[in-house]
Each structure stands twice: as structure tokens, then as C-alpha cells.
């Protein structure tokens, strides 16, 4: 077994062990910490100057018959999936750490930790798969655990309804995606599910998909992946689900799992149906402006922190789409970097939000105020996280957004096109996110103390540890984006670049 296979299967085996009665929190913590360490080891061993798409490859053939594409349980990493793997393992450790202790959970702690591991493990499996089938299948592993987590452990009266909404929404989205993937595989000859082989087939003018056919397939993939990543107008499941999910689930889902849709677009849709992407580029531009501007304004209108964070996480997906739409090295690498940065920062915010909810019992802006005087450490951490999410320099989000904007403007020497106009409008999103983040900060932490409750004790070291882990990751990449860019760039150059920049 290769290290990568161990990374993929460790959370799933741990989940199984918890099902059979292993101590829940201990096992979950151990498994997620081990996967984090192992993925850091892989990041150190990763060679940035190697030819060939994937490293640490392993493959087990599952089905090899003439009438069906070869199916193999194969894993491998390139720069992009390595970054996503790091994101998943970091957030998973933090999510397990901020989870309530067994005794504090009213209902089955086993189920809680088991589901958490399945959600995280599914995301890891999807990001590490080099087989299209398992890329899809691993992502679906999170569907039912999310349903159970929101329905059982969620907050608020509407949680069962919300659990249904997210499950049906994502279920339908992945069915559409499935059809798109099946059509793509059939159009490429239907001989393999291996992503590298499929891309090679697609790039060969003789075996590639006819331009006419590409449009339809791209549209299906866009709707499918777009639903999973809450692209406007398929976004309405996201904010309520994140608001009502328990904090660790919101962290994993908003931080990691949602990125699967973007990852899939970059990994599958862009290289396999580039012409379809070009055809619908303007549609993508309009939709991403819907995310950035329309949903940005919706975010400003929120009166509750959890909803606001939910909508802000939807809004920021627009930037990632912008980077992908730019279609050059800088844009796509910015997009990947933003996936990482946003994943970490939103996980941090949701963790803090969960803590606030637990201590103050409310997240309404009107009922909170002046908290910074009561819990200064929390205020400081929240400030960092909010600045990061708003894209202030020094945090990874800033580096990523800059790359995206510059990437999108790259073609401007030949005149300002649609994408440049989109960028100019999208830049206003930065102002919008500054507005809502600072407003939230002001009304919760500044001003007179509104809460009638006694001041709760501030963050302890144990609670600060996962938050600091996230913050360190965010600032390290913020100051030295090259930490991750060194992995991302060769991946795009060697393999996934759809047109020269």
C-alpha cells in the first residue's frame, strides 16, 4: 500500500472502527492527525520539476472488460490535488478538534465522529483519485453523513427541512454531473476512466470530442459541478445548510467539500471540453457576477452571523470561477490558491461562529455587541479571520485574489474584452466583502456590550489550538504564496493549461 492509499483509507477505516465501538473522539483525532502528517510528508517529498502528470501513483484494476471502460481504484497527486489534499487534512484536524467532546453531545457521539470522518475522507478520496469514476464516487460518500449530521445535530427548528434541501439539491446536481461524465467518457471512446488518459484522448485532434458535442457536455458539467459549488443560480442550498449545520460540518463542507465542484471543473471540464467552455464562457461570466455582486449584496443584508458567513462563502466562489474563466496559468493558479485560502479562512470563521453560538446562544447582530471586551482573544482571532476573508494583504486570500485579477487582465493588451469588463465589475466585490465583514465585526465586537449574559471565559489553549493551526496556514501562504504556487504552477503548465496565456 502506498502512503497515498493509506491517507485515503485511514479516515474511512477509522470511521468503521468507531462504528464497531472504538473511542470516538480519540480515534477520529488520531486518524485525522495521522493523515495530516502523512500529507505533509508527501508535500515535502513532492518533486516540482518532474515530467508527467501525477506522482505517488498507485492503481488497482477493478474491472477490465471490453464492453465497459477500464475501472481502477487509482490514486495520484499533482500540484493541484496536493494543495487540495493539504486543505482537506488541515481542515479535518481542526474540525475534529473543535467538535464537542463525547459527553457534551446529547445523541450518539459515535455517529457524529463517524460522519465527520466520512465527510472528510470522501473529500480526500475525491481529490486524490486519478480515476474519473472514483473521483465522482468518493465525493458522494459525504452525501448521507451530511444529511444525518444536519438533521440530528443541526441547530434550529428547520434543520430537518434543511437536511432535505441540501441532500436533494446535491443529489440532483450529482445526477446531472453523472450524465455529463458518462457522455464525456462515451464521446472519448468509452475505453477508460483514467483521467490522464482521457485528457490525452481529448487533446488529440483525432480522438477529441467534436466541438458541436462539447457544448452540451460542458453545460451538463457546469450545472452539475456548479450545483455542488453553489454557483449562482444553483446556490440556494448553501447558506441555510451552513447556518444550520453543526460547526465542524460547516467547516468541512464549506471549506473542503464544496471545492470539489471547482476542482472537478479544473480537472475534468477544462481539459476535456475546452471548446464547450469557450462557447459558454460568457454565460460563466454572467453567472459568476451573480455570485460576486448579487450574492454579495445578499450577504450585506443578512442579520445573523451564520447566514452571513454562509452567503459570503457562496459569494467568494465567484472569484474562483473568474480565475478559471481567465484560462491562463496565473488565473488558474490563483483560483487553486483561492480554493485553499478560502477553505481555511471560512473554516476558521465557522469555528469561531460555532463557539459564539455556544457561549452566547445567539448569532444575531442586534443581540450581540462589545464582545471584544469580554473575550479579547476571540475578538483578535475573529478580526484576523474576517480580514483574511475580506482579502487584506498578508493573508493567502489576498495573494490568490491578486493572481486572479491579474490573470484575468492578461489579455488586455489586445483590447478590453468581456472578461476584463467582468473583472472590473468583480473588483467591486472586494469592497462588498469589506463592508459586510467589517460591519459584522463592528456590531459583534465593538460598541456597548449588548448581551445580558455574564461574560463567558475566553478561549482556552485547547480551543485555540485548531484555530491557530488554521491561522498559521493562512498567514504562511499569505506571506509566501510560493509555498503552494510551486506545486500548482507545474501542474497547470504541464497538463491542464487550456490556452497559452
Amino acid at each position, binding site marked *: 500500500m502506498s502512503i497515498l492509499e493509506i491517507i485515503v483509507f485511514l479516515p474511512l477505516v477509522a470511521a468503521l472502527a468507531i462504528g464497531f465501538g472504538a473511542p470516538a473522539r480519540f480515534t477520529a483525532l488520531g486518524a485525522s492527525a495521522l493523515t495530516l502528517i502523512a500529507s505533509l510528508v508527501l508535500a515535502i517529498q513532492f518533486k516540482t520539476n518532474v515530467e508527467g502528470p501525477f506522482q505517488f501513483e498507485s492503481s488497482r484494476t477493478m*474491472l477490465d472488460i471490453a464492453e465497459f471502460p477500464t475501472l481502477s*481504484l487509482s490514486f495520484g497527486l499533482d500540484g493541484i490535488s496536493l494543495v487540495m489534499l493539504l486543505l482537506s487534512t488541515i481542515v479535518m484536524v481542526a474540525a475534529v478538534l473543535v467538535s464537542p467532546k463525547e459527553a457534551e453531545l446529547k445523541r450518539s457521539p*459515535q455517529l457524529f465522529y463517524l460522519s465527520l470522518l466520512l465527510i472528510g475522507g470522501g473529500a480526500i478520496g475525491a481529490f486524490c483519485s486519478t480515476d474519473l469514476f472514483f473521483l465522482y464516487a468518493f465525493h458522494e460518500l459525504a452525501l*448521507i453523513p451530511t444529511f*444525518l449530521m444536519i*438533521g440530528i445535530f443541526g441547530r434550529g427548528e428547520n434543520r*430537518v427541512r434543511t437536511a432535505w434541501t441540501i441532500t436533494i439539491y446535491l443529489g440532483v446536481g450529482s445526477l446531472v454531473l453523472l450524465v455529463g461524465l458518462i*457522455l464525456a467518457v*462515451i464521446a472519448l471512446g468509452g475505453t477508460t476512466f483514467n483521467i490522464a488518459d482521457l485528457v490525452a484522448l481529448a487533446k488529440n485532434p483525432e480522438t477529441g470530442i467534436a466541438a458541436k458535442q462539447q457544448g452540451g457536455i460542458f453545460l451538463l458539467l457546469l450545472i452539475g459541478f456548479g450545483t455542488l459549488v453553489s454557483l449562482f443560480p444553483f446556490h440556494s442550498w448553501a447558506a441555510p445548510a451552513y447556518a444550520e449545520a453543526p460547526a465542524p460540518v460547516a467547516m468541512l463542507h464549506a471549506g473542503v467539500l464544496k471545492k470539489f465542484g471547482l476542482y472537478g471543473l479544473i480537472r475534468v471540464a477544462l481539459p476535456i471540453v475546452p471548446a464547450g467552455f469557450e462557447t459558454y464562457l460568457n454565460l460563466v461570466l454572467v453567472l459568476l457576477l451573480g455570485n460576486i455582486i448579487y450574492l454579495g449584496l445578499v450577504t450585506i443584508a443578512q442579520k445573523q452571523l451564520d447566514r452571513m458567513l454562509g452567503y459570503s462563502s457562496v459569494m467568494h466562489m465567484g472569484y474562483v470561477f473568474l480565475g478559471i474563466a481567465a484560462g491562463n496559468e496565473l488565473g488558474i493558479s490563483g483560483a487553486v490558491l483561492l480554493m485553499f485560502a478560502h477553505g481555511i479562512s471560512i473554516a476558521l470563521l465557522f469555528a469561531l461562529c460555532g463557539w459564539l453560538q455556544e457561549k452566547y446562544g445567539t448569532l444575531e447582530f442586534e443581540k450581540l455587541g462589545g464582545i471584544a471586551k469580554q473575550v479579547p482573544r476571540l475578538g483578535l482571532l475573529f478580526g484576523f479571520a474576517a480580514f483574511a476573508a475580506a482579502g487584506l494583504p498578508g493573508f493567502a486570500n489576498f495573494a490568490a485574489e491578486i493572481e486572479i485579477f491579474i490573470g484575468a487582465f492578461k489579455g488586455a493588451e489586445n483590447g478590453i474584452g468581456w472578461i476584463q469588463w467582468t473583472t472590473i465589475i468583480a473588483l467591486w466585490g472586494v469592497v462588498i466583502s469589506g463592508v459586510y465583514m467589517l460591519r459584522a465585526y463592528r456590531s459583534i465586537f465593538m460598541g456597548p456590550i449588548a448581551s445580558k449574559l455574564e461574560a463567558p471565559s475566553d478561549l482556552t489553549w485547547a480551543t485555540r489550538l485548531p484555530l491557530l493551526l488554521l491561522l498559521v496556514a493562512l498567514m504562511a501562504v499569505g506571506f509566501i504564496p510560493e509555498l503552494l504556487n510551486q506545486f500548482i504552477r507545474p501542474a497547470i503548465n504541464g497538463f491542464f493549461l487550456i490556452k497559452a496565456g
Partner: protein
Amino acid sequence: MPVYYLEIIVVVLGLLMLMVDAFAKLDDKRSIASIGIIGLIVVFGLLFKVVPPESTEGVFWQFYSAGDQTALFFKGIAVLTTLIVLIMASDFSPIVVRQTADPEPGAHPQAGLGEFFALPMFACAGLMWMASANNLVSIFVSLETVTITFYILVAYLRRNVGSLEAGVKYLILGALSTGFLVYGFAWLFGITGSMQLSEIATALADPSINTTAAFFAFALILVAVAFKVGGAPFHFWIPDVYQGAPTPITAFLSVGSKAAGFIVFLRLVDPFLASAPLVGKVTTVLSVIAILTLLMGNLAAMPQKNFKRLLAYSSVAHAGFLIMALASSPDASAAGQSMSPTTVISFYLGAYLLMTLLAFLVMTTVRGQVAGEDLNAYKGLAKRSPFLAFTLLISMASLAGIPLTAGFFGKFFVFKLAAEQQNWTLLVVGLIGAAAGFYYYLKIAVSMFFESSDDDALAIPVRTTTRIAMIALTIAIIAVGINPGLILGLLP
């Protein structure tokens, strides 16, 4: 060992069980079921030992196909289903005893239980024969062997009105469909002059065939076969009969009878699909039936509040996916590139067996403690018996077609077939059906996980045999979900 020995062994086993019931003085008649269970495990093992006959000359082989791989696969399905049905039947026996109670003084307290275990054996022999039937006569006789056994089994709980009602409905509608079948066979014989399926195929492929008459024969046969497998609009008996029949028999109907129905469906439709003058019309009719079945099954399942009824509609829905595969048969030119509908349907039924029987096993076990099969009966099951809740959740996930379970590959193959044939209408309807499935299969999870039980109910006891069967089925569902080759390897 020649393949037809297997049917003989099963019949002898059934007779043996009847003899033991009649002559041995047993305190607990559930041991009769154990004879059947052990016997069927042996038969299942022997399935892998059969050798094809040296010569297929002679009258016998005109009624019985010479052990092709597909037939063997469906025999395996029949044996495995009966095996698990017998396990369920022993769990269910207290209810059978209560509802067949004999007021006669001096009667054995379990009088009437023995036949409840023996009859499925005869049905099993019939199902196995159906898998090998290659002649209109043998198809008809084997089908009736099974159906008549089912008439008895469905109405077995004679003190229960629901069971009797189900029996009457099944009898009347079943007889009607048999009429259609025989009439269709008569027309088919009239057109082609043969009872032999291979000769019928040759005759139908002749371009000078009277297409109107042949199509009429097809329509009559289709009505009968669609009735057997639960294809709309001939599915109306299914919810009532499934709900009224004793639960193990419902499972038997839903898996064994449906699988055997489909092998007959495949055998009978194949000559029509291979016939150039007829294939267009036949495919259109099949598509219409598939669309109706998918919509009826999936949409009607959504509001159901009784778990058994829900599974009844789910069984209709799955029939829809299977007919969808049949309606997407590739042309002869494309053969070899895509999977044949026979392979897809066989795989689907193999996966369907695993997940449906698992659901019924849990249902029977819960029924032992909680009256009725209402969804409310499953409230708080996750807390009461986490093991049962987990296995039922796996089974529902697989029925809904969530990846990494066997059920997903079934749907995946069907969708792929439809996409290859560019059968877009069917594909869209199939997607709507699958999406609806997410809802109604997860509804049970809401009862089990989100709601708490009324009182401090104790864990539901699970017998060791049942527990082993549940664990085996759960592992099989996930293993096939990761490696579909486990089932595909058994197919030609």
C-alpha cells in the same frame, strides 16, 4: 454434474421437508427451515460445479437450455433468494403461527408452519427451471409452477384479512395475465409454427413475416410479462399484494419472482428485438412502458407512509430501470462495444437481490417486536438497535443508487446504455426517477435517526443466522459497489 440435477435436488429437499413435517415429532418446527437452509447452501455451492452436457440432442434439451451462464446466474439468484426467505420465514414464524391458529383441540401448537417452509422450495425449483426454459411450453409450465405456489403463500395467513385480500387479488389478476400469456403464445405459434425460442427467432427475422400479427402476439405477451415484473400500467396489484402478503413472501415475490420474470421477459423479447421488421415498434412500446413504470413507481413511492408499500413501489421503480435497459438495446452493429441489456439486467438484479433482501431482513426482524410496518415503527431505531439502523441505511443508500454501493452500478450501467443509444427521453425520465429515489429511500432514515422512540424501548433481538445474513449482504453491497467485477465475473 448436469445442471438439471439441481432442480431435482431442490424438489427432493422440499418433499423431504414435508415428510419431516408430517412424520417426525418436532417440538419446534423451525428446524424444518434449517433443513432447507442447509440444503440450499449446498445447492448454491453445487451451482459452481455443474458441467455442460456432452450432447444436446434429444427431446429434453428442447425444453431446457443446456446450462448457459445467464441461466446459471438466475438459478443462483433463485437459490440465494429462497435461502434468505427461509431465514426470514423462521424469524417470522411466531406471526405465522398466530395468524394460522387452529382451534382444533390437540393440534400441534405450530400446526401449519411446516408448509410455510416447504412451499418456497417448490417455488425455488420453479424459478430455477424458468431460468433454463427455452420453449414456450416449458416457460409456461415453469411460470405456472411458481405462480401457483405464490397464490398459496400470499394468502397463507388465513386469519388475516389483509393476507386473504392480497391472495384473492393476486389470484384473479394472475389468472388474467396467464390468459394473456397463453393467447400470445398461441398467436406466436400460429405465426412462426414453432414453440422453440430459437426457431421462433429465425421465423421472426424473416422479412416476409406478417408484422401485424407478430406485433399483436408481442403485445399480448408483453401484458402478461409486464404483469409479472411489475411494469406499468400492469403494476396495480403490486402495492396491495406486497402489503398483505407475509413479509418473507413479499421479499420472495419482490426478488425471486421479479428476477425470474425478467429472464423470461428477456428470452421472449429477444426474438422480437432481433427481428428487423419489428424492432422499431417493439423498442417504442418498451420505451413507453419504461417511462410509465419509472414515473408511476418513483412518484407513487414518494408519499407512502407504510414501509412495505414503499418498497412495493420501489420494486415497480426498479422494474422501470430494468425495462429502460431493455428498451435501450444496442443495434447488432454496436454489439461488443457496449454491454448487452442481458448483462446489465442480470447485474442489476444481482445487486437488487442484495439490497432488497437486506431491507426485508431488517423489516422482518423489526416486525417481531413492533406491530405493523408503518414508517413510525422505525422511529428511534438508530438508538434502539444501531446495527439494524446501519444495515437498513446501507440498503436504502444502495436502493437509492448512491455511489460505492452495488445499486449505483446497476443504475450507472443502465444510464450508460441509454446514453449510448442516445435515448434522451428515457434518460431524462430515469434521472427524475433516480432523484425521486433519494427522497423516498432517505425518508426511512429520518424515522430511524432524527426521531426518538416513544418509550425506552429495548434493543431488538437479532438471531445469529439472521445477523450473519445481514452482515454478509451488507459487505456484499459495499464490495460490489467498489468492484462490480464480483458480479459481472459470474456473467458470460
